[in-house]
């Protein structure tokens, strides 16, 4: 796919963008950037990827390349913020976007109300899991499911620690859901 895009195949580029954008977005969201900063990091990541096309040595690792680039840009944003504003915290809490997607409208229909409620609770509980778990799960839930190599690049954690951490975080989340009586 990467090679086809290098050769000028716009359809291959489109497939790459559609397949990898959720991963890049998940990295941005995992780092809790403001919307404006997050959008710029997302764009910078893709602009740079377009620029590096054809120079990427291992095309099958394009996802890890994108995830790693997005992570480094996120860290730069956070570093810049820490330097500029020492007192107030300009980061916003992670939240769902305001716009209602067609899927969301669908899920709001009455027969799906219970499921929608569970989805919302699941989302709320993520914030209570602690930073490491929240970050891991946000990247883990990108679609299609990212590889451990991609998750490692996205968060700067060792591949070998992802499995155990994933298990612990998912179980912690389930315990919180059960404690709130949401089954």
């Amino acid at each position, binding site marked *: 796919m990467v090679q086809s895009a290098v050769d000028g195949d716009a359809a291959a580029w489109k497939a790459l963008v559609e397949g990898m954008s959720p991963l890049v977005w998940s990295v941005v969201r995992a780092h809790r950037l403001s919307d404006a900063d997050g959008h710029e990091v997302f764009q910078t990541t893709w602009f740079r990827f377009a620029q590096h096309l054809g120079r990427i040595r291992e095309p099958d690792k394009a996802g890890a390349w994108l995830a790693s680039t997005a992570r480094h840009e996120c860290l730069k944003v956070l570093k810049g913020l820490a330097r500029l504003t020492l007192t107030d915290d300009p980061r916003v809490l992670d939240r769902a976007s305001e716009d209602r997607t067609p899927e969301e409208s669908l899920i709001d229909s009455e027969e799906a109300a219970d499921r929608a409620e*569970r989805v919302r609770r699941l989302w709320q509980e993520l914030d209570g899991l602690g930073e490491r778990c929240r970050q891991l799960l946000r990247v883990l839930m990108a679609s299609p499911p990212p590889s451990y190599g991609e998750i490692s690049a996205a968060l700067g954690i060792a591949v070998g620690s992802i499995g155990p951490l994933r298990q612990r975080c998912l179980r912690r989340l389930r315990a919180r859901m059960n404690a709130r009586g949401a089954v």
Partner: protein
Amino acid sequence: MSGDDGMPREDGPDDGGFADALLEEELRQAAAVLDPVPAELLQAALDAFALHDLDARLAELTFDSLVDALPVRGVTDAPRMLTFRAGEVSVDVEVTEEGLIGQVLPPQSARIEVLGGPQTTRPLTADTLGRFTSDTPPTGPFALRLRTGGEVIVTEWLRA
């Protein structure tokens, strides 16, 4: 999730594994519904294909004061200093609230444009020593395109 009390346990890998996979999938659906990639960003990424340019030489970022410089006590608005390098040519750039100042090294005349995206370019004037200024600070992602000595060099995209 029937039969799962949710308490931390020393499960075998295939005991809670199925429930974990289910929960992960549920989260994936939640993300797709509650926090999808914004449509305008998807479009921006699609449009970025136009930035794919095999003829230009890529000047890689080799110094970024945000990462590589030690913070100076009491100085919170220090300008961002950047150095890009493509072989023997390097470009020093200083980004301030007033705009851009920079120089191509070794000194040489160059035609320079500031790129702000696939469709946005703004020409800059550079003197015979390769020094250039812009009184418009870049907002968001930017790159510089230099034409010098018969070749085209583009700096790595960066967020200002």
